């Protein structure tokens, strides 16, 4: 039953993305200053929002794990972190492609790029830490503490890097930051299927994590016998 629901949601997400892509490519006009490449924004920006949401859920799940010691929360934390990292990577890579076209360079140490990269590395560390711990409850506790530390670091990182960058020349991204309302609406419209995809992937990963733990437990039992 659960599998069918997930499959259905997956199909729905695919259909919505296809419809959105059709609108993005065929209906919306080229942006005045940037031409066709601005369309990458419809994936770039929602991916960043999704990644941030993933960090929030990971924090909540980690705190809940430390309170309840229920390993379901641990599975939730690792699932959203991993899928969130994938969305973070989408954000970084689409941003780099955009930067190559508009700025002529793949990377610049602009405040937003640097902050995103630092946060991405932080949460990549979370996954590495998990790989290094064998025992499930120890792994869950260690990872939960790290997740809380990482989340506490995000605002300080973003704030300090912005401050650091204001003392340096900064590339101009948008002139005034204004956007046509149809483009603005599309940004949110395209977030919906990405969120759906995020939920499906996280749910799948969570099941896989729980199954993995059960297999490990059975294997250990077999060893003991």
């Amino acid at each position: 039953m659960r599998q069918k629901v997930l499959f259905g949601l997956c199909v729905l997400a695919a259909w919505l993305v296809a419809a959105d892509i059709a609108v993005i490519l065929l209906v919306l006009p080229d942006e005045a200053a940037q031409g066709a490449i601005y369309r990458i924004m419809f994936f770039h920006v929602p991916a960043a929002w999704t990644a941030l949401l993933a960090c929030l859920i990971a924090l909540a799940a980690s705190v809940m794990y430390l309170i309840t010691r229920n390993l379901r929360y641990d599975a939730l934390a690792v699932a959203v972190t991993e899928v969130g990292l994938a969305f973070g990577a989408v954000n970084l890579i689409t941003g780099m492609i955009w930067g190559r076209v508009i700025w002529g360079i793949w990377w610049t140490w602009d405040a937003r790029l640097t902050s995103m990269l630092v946060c991405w590395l932080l949460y990549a560390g979370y996954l590495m830490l998990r790989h290094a711990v064998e025992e499930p409850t120890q792994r869950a506790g260690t990872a939960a503490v790290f997740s809380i530390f990482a989340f506490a670091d995000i605002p300080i990182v973003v704030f300090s890097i912005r401050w650091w960058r204001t003392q340096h020349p900064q590339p101009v991204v948008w002139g005034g930051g204004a956007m046509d309302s149809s483009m603005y609406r599309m940004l949110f419209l395209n977030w919906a299927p990405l969120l759906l995809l995020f939920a499906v992937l996280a749910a799948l990963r969570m099941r896989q994590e729980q199954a993995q733990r059960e297999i490990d437990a059975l294997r250990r039992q077999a060893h003991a016998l």
Partner: protein
Amino acid sequence: MNFLRQAWLIACKDLRAELRTKEAINASLSFALVILLLFSFAFDPNSEQTREISGGLLWIVFAFAGALILNRSFARELANDCLDALVASPVSSAALFLGKCVANVTLLLAVELVCLPVFGVFYNVRWTGRFWPLLLVLALGTWGLTVVGTMFSALTVNLRLRELMLPTLVYPLMIPGLMAAIQLTTALIAGQPLAGGLYGWLKLLAGFDIIFTALALGLVDTVLVG
């Protein structure tokens, strides 16, 4: 009161153990000197540019040297199950953590105070112009590095690849603190007074220390006891 006394006892114990064996501080100091030497091959040492990037150079040295001290901090207690005994003793986890932090800060500050004159001599940089503000920045930056590092030393003490995990986890987390320390150190070595925008960085560094000290003291019990 009791809490502080316990922390003090742990700090004294760690410092005494370290001063008898000198294993961490010797390794850390010689490693720091090697990195200072290596920098001279990375760029032309006797230029005015050295002064402009002095904060960055010094804090990279301190962060690398610190990792060696921090790695040993909890790993030292693994032999003869000392860590289990410490956790089982009436000393609270927070006091244990605080004591170890104080010991690590003392050791790392000692390494830093040796490195600074060496840096000054090697690269022909006058660094004593703003000595006391610089010492304050060193203390605050080292405290931040040590609090996060000691916490992760406790977190990774039972892991395989412990030596590898600690720096990989700590450095990204340390970026705001390191950045503030670097900005402040560069400006102070260049002879600027601690005012204006530098105050902002000092506040950021102090805030970083306070936030992570509070978080670490609150969470260390779950790490050590489980």
